[in-house]
């Protein structure tokens, strides 16, 4: 992996990664590798994370009480740790999502002002 390739990648902002993890876990408990795969898959590989950076984020969320850990068995019959969304995390996801939508809307308005003018 050369430096240039790295630069092409869109680096995930910390908060965004949190949001994506919460969104992924909304579909049900998953282990670390599955979360990483799901984020990659759902974002068409554009938002590629160094998979390792998932772990500090997961632990941050555990510490805040937004997700919890439980033992489970993975699809290939191995003992694995599953992360699941807590009630507090569910609420947080709603807050974060609306915040994100507002931000995205604002950025879109800045980037394409003519579209806005046309509408009004």
């Amino acid at each position, binding site marked *: 992996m050369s430096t240039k390739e790295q630069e092409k990648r869109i680096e995930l902002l910390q908060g965004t990664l949190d949001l994506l993890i919460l969104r992924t876990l909304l579909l049900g408990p998953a282990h670390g*590798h599955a979360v990483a795969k799901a984020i990659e898959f759902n974002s068409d590989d554009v938002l590629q994370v*160094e*998979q390792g950076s998932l*772990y*500090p984020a997961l*632990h*941050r969320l555990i*510490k805040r009480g937004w997700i919890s850990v439980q033992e489970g068995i993975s699809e290939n019959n*191995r003992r694995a*740790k599953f992360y699941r969304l807590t009630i507090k995390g569910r609420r947080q996801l709603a807050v974060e999502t609306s915040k994100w939508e507002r931000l995205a809307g604002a950025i879109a308005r800045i980037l394409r002002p003519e579209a806005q003018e046309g509408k009004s």
Partner: protein
Amino acid sequence: MRRRKRMMEELDQDIRDHIEVETQENIERGLSPEEARYAALSKFGNVTRVTEETRAVWSSIWVEQLLQDLSYGIRALWKNPGFASVIVLTLALGIGANTAIFSVVRAVVIAPLPFPEPDRLVIVWESRPQVKRLGASYPDFLDWQRNTRSFAQMAALTLHSYDLTNPGAPQHLDGMEISSSFFATLGVKPAMGHDFTSAQDLPHGTPAVIISHRLWRDRFASSPQAIGKSMLLDGAEYTVLGVLPPGFRFIADPDVYTPLAQGEPLLYSDRTIHAFISIARLKPGVSIGQAGAEMSAVEENLNHLYPVADGSLGTNVVPLKQEIVGDVGGTLLLLLGAVGVVLLIACANVANLLLARSAARTREFAIRSALGAGGGRIVRQLLTESVVLAMTGGILGLIVATLGVRLIFAEFAQRLPRSESIGMNLPVLLFALGISLAVGIVFGLAPALKSSRVDLQGSLKSGDRGSTRRHPRSQSTLVIIQMALTVVLLVGASLLLRTIGDLWKVNPGFNFQHVITFKVGLSPSLTKTASDTRIAYQQLLERIRRIPGVQAADFTNIIPLSEQDNGGPFWIGPQESTSMQDAPHALYFETGPEYLQTMGIPLLRGRFFTSADTSESEPVIVINSVLAHAYFHDQDPVGQAITVAHWRTARVIGVVGNVRHWGLGDPGTYNPSQIYISFYQLSDQWIPAFARDLSVAVRTPLDVATIMPAVKNVVYGTGKDQPVYSVRTMQQVVSESMSSQRLPMILLGVFAALALLLASIGIYGVISYSATQRVQEIGVRMALGAERRQIFQMVIGQGLRIAVVGVTIGAMAAQVLARLLSTFSQLLYGVGPSDPVTFVSVSLVLISVAVLACYIPARRASRVDPMIALRYE
């Protein structure tokens, strides 16, 4: 904590699982097991960093890392003792000098006065158009006290010294005559006994005295029974009323305080005698401006009521602290700035060393970041190291500061107000700590940031030295700044040095060589009446003149250049032709007949006093050349009449040379007229007041240690209870009169020398570093036929360019400092602020030092063996 431990154990397992799953998937996609594992690891990223970052989520990991960094930093520095000790010593000098000056500035300028609510304390001067700080007359003071509303309390005081003859051995004591409200105004209560009451503001009360804690300890053995005991001061019985708290002092450090109403009635009953200092405490919420406005209104009323005495007087309300700190404050702040510059120069050296070192460590950082150290982590590591260096420097600096403060104190304590509280204390320690920390962070940050942006692969590949090309430029810039700052300090110091040199060349109007002055407290039994006093002084002087080695001796009430003042109005002609305030003022010397000869003041016309000029004969005076020119123009003043306020009309019998009384560099604007009156002709009523202040001057080729025992023998011969004190040579007096220049000169000189040393180390460091970096290039040049001389010149030339640029910038900046010295604090005399001699010589000194510093690396470079240099990599 347990949760954290469990989470961390599981994390490792998690990561292993994660990578295994990924590897498995890759194998399923058709990769070989080895490739599959490699791809999985690469996709995961740096495992160590992930573990660290995750651990950071769970803990106050920075404490852990800080300890790690600390031990690593100390070990790294320990392995490089030369590097570390140069930095630590450089910083110790810089921080130490700053801490020393700060401790002086804090004690003298910053610290509040040691009284409750000190900001409400003010001093109230009277003023004439020419004189902003005229003492108050006591009747005026009483009117102020009655008619103002701005002040919670007002008090008057005047300095007064006593000869104590019982209990214990005779001793001369400094004291104050005060109004009863003095201690209450300051907010101080006696530690024992009582304060004065308003009853003591009336004349003819029982003589009472309040004494200092020190006197109580020395003379009464700290006995509680001291209250009510009696003391013999100037031959009169005083009852001890109270003892002050330890450490109390105000302006001077007096031992006895007496009510001023028990003092000399001539001083406190005359509205034209401005002998008192008036202090006051503002009522809460009243500003200086409001108090000043009220004082002006009250004084204007007095102008109308007493047109003769108070005709054109105004008032001037000044914060007490400002008054006590005086001009020294500006000088000290200037010095604090200068010493800050020294620190900057020291820091530039440190930054240079750190830069060079971080360049040499590029590979170390590349390896560490490859092993998973984040950029922030490396910055923190480097910062920890530089802070460790700075703090070590700071601790050594405290030793430097302690020594420095001791030196400053020994040299200047007498001339600095509030010097008693100079020393190492908590605020000073905090200051030292603060600047050490700031230095460590600010000057560690640049090299640290530089190192954290390492191009990983580049530096790992390229042999043993990393990418170092970028550093020399910023290093040269730092050296240029050092040079420029050094020029500024050198110029400041040498301008002051030249000023003092010029001042010593000024003719003071008298011959200060071989003159010793001292005071004698004549026994009260010898000075009961005015005529007794005259006889006692005459006999004392006759006996002193008979001592072998004494060429001439007589007394005077004020000594030139000692800041003693005795001004008063006079009128040309036999009448008081105008009001006192409108009359011209002169400085009055009350002397004996041999004073002129003793001081070596030239007689220009007529004659000086003789022993035939007595209280029985015609009153005569002698004037100086300035008064003669100003008021008699081309006429011969000898034989003319002059009327002296508070005395009488006298005939001018002689003209003498002008004496520079107010300072060698004095421009002659304040009271340049001087009048000499024979002490023996003073009115009886004035004799006691003046006799107290008389100093004896003796002209002798012998030194103090030889002559003074003989003088004391003579004095003690007429009475054992007569202290001899304030012994000084006129040489000392002249030297002390220049202390306002001497303090900044000596300190600026020390700072400039330090700066020069540091800057030469700086330029040496950069030139030799860059010469080492260029060894290969030099080898190539030599192989292509360059001669050793050319290589030598090339390296010297590089240093010279840096020095010239620095000196040029510095010379421009120095102009600003020099203007400050000359206008803002009026310290310069004889030299202009852009004195070409100073600027040229300073520039030459600095450039030659720079060339010298480059000599060693240049020689080394020219001795390079091209064969070895080319094989170098």
